[in-house]
């Protein structure tokens, strides 16, 4: 074990790392992360974007991006990311069997995260979007201590239970000096496909209010729409499968807001 904290070292070839986090589970980090990555390229096709699924215990990126299989290795033993929709991806999900639980204590997780960061042949990328697991523990610490992060996007649903954790997530990033780019309010409202009645299933506007309280920007508001879940289950995220839909537009807006904020927080 090395003494002291690991030193932050950038990943060669990657210009900016954006982490998508929340604190709370199940608010849509992974869904937001894939659609953000696709939104970034949709808004500016000249940009190259990669995805790192750091959710070691519950890797969702393979499912969402319709990717499967073990990564091949380059001549110098770097893992080659699997690519779909133009986005190279790496996930623990590619390295383990579908049903195998990843029952690892913190130390092993640290080691796995190191590999996912350093032993991947990312090539040259403008952005690396990192999908974080829920919580504020080993994975979050390992990533923030290991690599410089341009900014964090915090996803929350409107309800207080989620916001409490989102606030802790934001605080964690402040503690480790990672700029918080802003909040995404997810699952904000549901519109009945039959009668168009709107129901705020998970509460109303809480994330907007939290953003104001924390003094961070609200990057976007994504409604609860069947299409998002259906396309996710099919492995074709809404930004590519229904690019003209309001949901896809909402994600593209988040992507523009992220780019704008990155310019603002650049040291």
């Amino acid at each position, binding site marked *: 074990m090395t003494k002291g904290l690991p030193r932050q070292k950038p990943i060669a070839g990657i210009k900016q790392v954006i982490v998508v986090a929340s*604190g*709370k*589970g*199940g*608010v849509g980090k*992974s869904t937001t992360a894939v659609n953000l990555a696709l939104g970034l390229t949709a808004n500016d096709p000249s940009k190259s974007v990669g995805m790192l699924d750091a959710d070691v*215990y*519950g890797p*969702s990126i393979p*499912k*969402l991006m319709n990717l499967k299989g073990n990564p091949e290795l380059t001549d110098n033993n770097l893992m080659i990311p699997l690519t779909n929709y133009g986005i190279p991806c790496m996930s623990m999900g590619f390295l383990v069997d*579908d*049903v*195998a*639980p*990843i*029952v*690892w*204590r*913190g*130390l092993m*997780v640290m080691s796995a995260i190191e590999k996912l960061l350093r032993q991947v042949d990312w090539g040259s990328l403008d952005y690396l979007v990192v999908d974080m*697991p*829920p*919580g*504020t*523990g*080993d994975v*979050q*610490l390992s990533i923030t201590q290991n690599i410089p992060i341009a900014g964090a996007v915090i996803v929350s649903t409107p*309800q*207080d*239970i*989620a916001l*409490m*954790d989102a*606030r*802790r*997530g934001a*605080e*964690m990033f402040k*503690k480790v000096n990672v700029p918080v780019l802003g909040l995404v309010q997810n699952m904000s409202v*549901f519109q*009945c*496909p*039959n*009668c168009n*009645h709107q*129901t*705020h*299933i*998970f*509460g109303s506007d809480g994330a907007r209010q939290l953003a104001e309280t924390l003094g961070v920007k609200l990057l976007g508001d994504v409604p*609860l729409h*069947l299409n998002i*879940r*259906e396309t*996710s*289950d099919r492995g074709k995220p809404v930004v590519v499968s229904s690019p003209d839909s309001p949901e896809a537009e909402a994600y593209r807006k988040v992507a523009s807001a992220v780019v704008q904020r990155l310019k603002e927080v650049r040291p």
Partner: protein
Amino acid sequence: MEHSNDGNLAQVQHVVLVLSGKGGVGKSTITTELALALRNAGKKVGILDVDLCGPSIPRMLSVGRPDVHQCDSGWVPVYTDAKKSLALMSIGFLMEDPDEAVVWRGPKKTALIGQFVSDVAWGELDVLLVDTPPGTSDEHLAVLENLKKHRVDGAVLVTTPQAVSTGDVRREITFCKKTGVRILGIIENMSGFVCPHCSECSNIFSKGGGEELAKLTGSEFLGSVPLDPLLSASIEEGKDFVQSFPNSATFSALTSISQTLLSSLQAA
């Protein structure tokens, strides 16, 4: 571990873990509702909230931030009412600042959970429900290791119907099988949404995934709980949904699930 510590769990009849693997499927909500339903059925219930990073139960039961006291046998749990029918222990009670982030690595979490499991003076309980964080990590291993001396009746797994959830819950099922934890059953949460205006049912998070998962893995399917804005509002405000909405479909679902669970526990 000292033998005398088992004293704190000696009068607890049944211990049930509430697991998922996937975050945000409603473990804490289901734990709270099961506890309230069991209490409604006359049982003495305890909840141990080992989600150190996101302790939700205190908020859901509206217990605020009480002081936690020590007695000879350890920590005294927080009771939600004067009759002491529902006891709770959560890290939420030990933090100075409720908004403070608990950014700990594994070994520290393991140590605290060890204390939570052995050093809370639960007294007599019919059922102790253990609410866990998502995943299969230090917290889960710590709970199992510390509960080894006392019997763990088994685990209830909560999932939402969609593929990304059932995928993670499948891993959790394998975890249970490998660690010898009996799977008491699977609950499918957020199963269908009924529009309050026109009663059209929309399967926002899909439907049936939990039931299929149960069939696929040979586990019992305990039931489905619909996506109900009244339930989310109740939880948000820390109200007792079971008391407030006894005529709802959600109430029937929760009651039926808690009764099936209780029969399972008593039969074993």
